[in-house]
């Protein structure tokens, strides 16, 4: 699954640690999400969508 997390984070000038703190996860989790090594759970995806004020499908795109 592709995502625009890195772009959205860069637009706000947030570091991975800033985003991790806002989402209450580790910085490694943010790094894993951005590099496509991990797909978030549904609750975390909703949390990310709420934080950026965008629908989930504009942040995460299914590659299939």
């Amino acid at each position, binding site marked *: 699954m592709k995502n625009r997390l890195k772009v959205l984070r*860069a637009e706000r000038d947030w570091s991975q*640690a800033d985003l991790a703190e806002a989402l209450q996860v580790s910085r490694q989790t943010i790094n*894993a999400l951005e*590099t496509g090594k991990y797909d*978030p759970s549904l609750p975390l995806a909703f949390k990310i969508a709420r934080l950026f004020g965008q629908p989930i499908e504009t942040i995460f795109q299914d590659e299939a």
Partner: protein
Amino acid sequence: MTLVSQFSKAYQSNRLVRGLVYGIAGAPFGYLFGRWLGSFKDFGEWNPTWPDMMAALLGVFMFGLGLGVLAVCASRKALGRQLDPEGRRPATKAQVFFYAQNGVVLLLAGVMMVAPVAISTAFDPVPTLVGSAAMIGLIALFLLQTAMNISVWMRSDELLRQAMIEVGALCFVILQGAMFLWAAGGKLGLLPVMTLWDAVPVMMGMYLLIAFAVTWRRGLAA
């Protein structure tokens, strides 16, 4: 190429260099420890079997790793740098406690791995009283470590939990398959029969290998 990707590449190459430096620095210690283990054989004090040797090596490795983690946790700045090389903020108290707990879990695993080998080497045969006392100590350490592991699980985020689940599942599938095949080979007289103690360091070694692989694959080492 963006600034982020440039940083990421530089950071990754830094990690490789650091890994190489640690490897080179650690090699003499490994060599000396190996020689020390080998010296027992020369002097006839200890004639270790391969499971004892492997358990001792793994135990010392985990103990050293645990000490290393605790040493980093002693400084909030040092832990902060490990957790977020990009930033300059020190680790929070909760992060220090979490990673220190991981360090203690590793340390206890090391002690539990080495203790049976050390005690059976020091006392040959092991007196029942000493064996019982050691067993009670091991059970206490095992319960303490289990409680700490559960606590680590409860306070982990979803990526770490996912990694733990994957490690557990892979260990179960690979080890139960390998053990069945070995046991079948032993029953058929084709392979030497293993004791439970023989299997323990193999399981721990495989667990560590799988844990490192999953950690790497999931980007937890980044």
